[in-house]
């Protein structure tokens, strides 16, 4: 009995082997992502796995070029302001959802009202907190209302995916997405894969890749093995140390910026000279080289990458100058004082290593550094503790909208959840920028804010970590600054 059973298993295995070596078509690719989406409703979660898939099924009024420039997508052109709190979008004509529904003003109004409805409780709510509603003007014109002047509304609409009003009411909508994008949903085998096929009726340029399969592989070593074994064409979050092993890799300045928040509220870091010394003490180039194998750029003294809105190109990183750091400490009478440095482990790429390296640089200039690595939950207690601020808290800011508003509100503004300063001037600039609809004026406000924070050394700005992708030999693709995996931009050779 048992022997027979074994034979059957072997036969099944042999059959599976034959199926697996069947010739693959050139225009079918497989992409590995770190985690399986929990839903394919594009408006519910704030989840990277879901975005990786839905960015190809759904579209937004505004999009970005690979370099990060905001351009119209489902909108026909850039929106115009009608009065202080209203933005008007003209819509692209003739666009249809995959199920045949027309994309029009009704669809936009429905999508906006759906995601901002408090009952809907979207995790993306924080991206759209200023929006109060939307109204149809005519079939291809729609107005979006905000609670005050909102200069980044066009940017927000880059994040809001448009859903079909008819289909979205269907209870199965979360499992069978229907968008306007270049790819349409073909199947979801839970736990194993999601398959998309090209949308023949796509309004834009026809993509080359005909079919894409997403696999969910959490363990980075396993993703690498899948690429090396020829099972995968694109893998995300390739570790810097693996770059030499893969057939092809591509890297681009990413959305993540690790910083250390320095407290000006008390303790040894209350003196600006000490905070400046902490900046001069750290060799950021060495961190980029040794921890990230060069796949990181030194952050230019601000919580922004050059492609983000509000970047101040006049501000440059504090140079590595340990002598100057020691001199500043002596001047402040702070040589040998204790500095508490709080971090966590395993949440962000090389988080523990970064914190320990920073601690070592600080010890080198004669400080008594107390490095404390907490489990993530306890770490959050420290980060969010408004009463007693640790001298220095490591955090990684991720900037999906490529705009200064969110990170500055959270870390620069004295009322932010992770701020350790009580700088009224700085907070005033950020408040002003939030409702300044003139692009040039708004940019100038952020540049002033960047300068103040830099002079006051409210942070130790470390790096801008690059995203690294591993690719099979046959792939041709240039990654994007917004980290989106747009299959329509990928090509397969041979």
């Amino acid at each position, binding site marked *: 009995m048992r022997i027979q059973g074994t034979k059957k298993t072997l036969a099944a*295995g042999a059959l599976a082997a034959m199926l*697996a070596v069947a010739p693959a078509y050139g225009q079918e690719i497989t992409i590995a992502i770190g985690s399986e989406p929990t839903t394919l409703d594009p408006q519910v979660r704030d989840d990277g796995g879901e975005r990786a898939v839905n960015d190809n099924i759904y579209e937004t009024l505004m999009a970005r070029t690979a370099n990060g420039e905001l351009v119209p997508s489902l909108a026909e052109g850039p929106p115009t302001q009608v009065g202080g709190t209203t933005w008007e979008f003209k819509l692209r004509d003739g666009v249809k959802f995959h199920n045949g529904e027309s994309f029009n003003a009704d669809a936009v109004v429905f999508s906006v009202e759906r995601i901002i409805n408090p009952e809907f409780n979207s995790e993306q709510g924080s991206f759209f907190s200023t929006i109060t509603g939307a109204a149809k003007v005519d079939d291809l014109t729609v107005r979006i209302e905000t609670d005050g002047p909102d200069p980044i509304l066009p940017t927000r609409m880059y994040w809001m995916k448009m859903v079909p009003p008819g289909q979205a009411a269907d209870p199965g909508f979360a499992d069978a997405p229907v968008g306007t994008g270049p790819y349409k949903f073909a199947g979801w085998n839970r*736990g194993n*894969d999601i398959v998309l096929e090209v949308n023949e009726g796509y309004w834009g340029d026809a993509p080359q890749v005909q079919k894409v399969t997403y696999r*969910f*592989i959490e363990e980075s*070593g396993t993703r690498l093995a899948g690429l090396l*074994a020829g099972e995968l064409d694109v893998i995300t979050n390739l570790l810097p140390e693996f770059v030499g092993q893969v057939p092809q890799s591509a890297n681009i300045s990413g959305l993540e910026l690790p910083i250390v928040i320095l407290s000006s509220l008390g303790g040894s870091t209350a003196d600006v000279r000490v905070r400046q010394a902490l900046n001069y003490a750290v060799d950021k180039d060495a961190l980029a080289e040794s921890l990230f194998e060069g796949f990181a750029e030194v952050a230019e003294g601000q919580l922004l990458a050059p492609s983000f809105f509000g970047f101040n190109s006049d501000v440059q990183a504090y140079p590595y100058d340990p002598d100057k750091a020691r001199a500043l400490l002596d001047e402040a009478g702070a040589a040998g004082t204790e500095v508490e440095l709080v971090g966590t482990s395993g949440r962000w790429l090389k988080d523990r290593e970064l914190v320990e390296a920073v601690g070592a640089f600080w010890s080198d200039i004669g400080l008594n550094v107390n490095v404390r690595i907490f489990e993530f939950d306890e770490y959050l207690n420290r980060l969010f503790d408004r009463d007693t601020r640790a001298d220095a808290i490591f955090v990684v*800011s991720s900037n999906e909208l490529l705009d200064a508003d969110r990170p500055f509100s959270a870390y620069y503004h004295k009322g932010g*959840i992770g701020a350790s300063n009580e700088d009224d001037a700085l907070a005033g600039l950020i408040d002003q920028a939030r409702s300044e609809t003139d692009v040039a004026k708004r940019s100038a406000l952020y540049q002033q804010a960047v300068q103040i924070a830099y002079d006051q050394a409210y942070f130790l700005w470390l790096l801008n970590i690059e995203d690294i992708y591993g690719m099979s030999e046959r792939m041709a693709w240039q990654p994007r600054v917004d980290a989106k995996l747009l299959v329509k931009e990928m090509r397969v050779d041979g």
Partner: protein
Amino acid sequence: MGRFMLKRLWHGLIVILGVTVIVFVVTRMVGDPVRVMLPLEATAEQRVAFEKRLGFDRSIPVQFAAYVGDLVRLDFGDSLWQRRPAMEIVFERLPLTLQLTAAGIILAIVLAIPLGIVAALRPGGLADRLTVTVSLLGLSVPQFWLGLLLIVVFAVQFRVLPTSGAASAKHIILPAVTLALPALARLVMLVRSSMIDELNQQYVKTASAKGMPFIRVVGMHALRNAAVPVVTLAGWELIRALAGYTVVVETVFAWPGLGLTAIQAIERQDLILLQAIVFTVAIMVVFINIAMDISYKMIDPRIRLA
């Protein structure tokens, strides 16, 4: 037998209840799922609204009462992370873990018995020394590393097996072997030592002396007497695999079972899903223990179940 079963089930129930209470207390004590689920930059108002939706704004005793009520109806509520019933996720993932565990443990047992017997026949001989050495290796190798090694050799170098996933029958081979190896190593050592003990007993010499074929002496008499500790260890290995090793093996091989789901639930502080998983595993452990007790009786009728 009936009384015995009732008693064991009663004990099992207490164990399961104890486990669920501990899970409730520990998960409520160690963390706040709301903070982990929302982006770091979310505002205080957004956090409060989110907390309210999840019911975490209620007091702990109220939450516990609701929890016990749900438990009685076997309804753990919706997973915080996946926003669908936690038990639905468990039932979706459990079969994959059972397949993998069954394949691994059966492989370990089927190989351990002949290898252990062969080693025991000539203690100190070549086969014995080889078996002991390989077993020690199997015990010392971290499973995580072993899994990646097998992937590199069989999937990347020779390309005979897939690296990861659960799409076809041959996807199970590498994870099952990885899961089996430490269990196999321990079982071989136990079969070997038990058989050496039994083969030195007087009844083995008597049976051989009266002309019984050696293979029957080993297979019928000695093996049967050596079986009780082996069954105990096999059951223990099964429990360890279900409640522990699958977590590592499923993560390495992206095998979408309950172990991988447990890790993901922990990373996302999904208390509800974690409770459902722990509860399910606890029930399985209780039933495996009962099955082991019954099998003792079948192997050795002299054993009294009480």
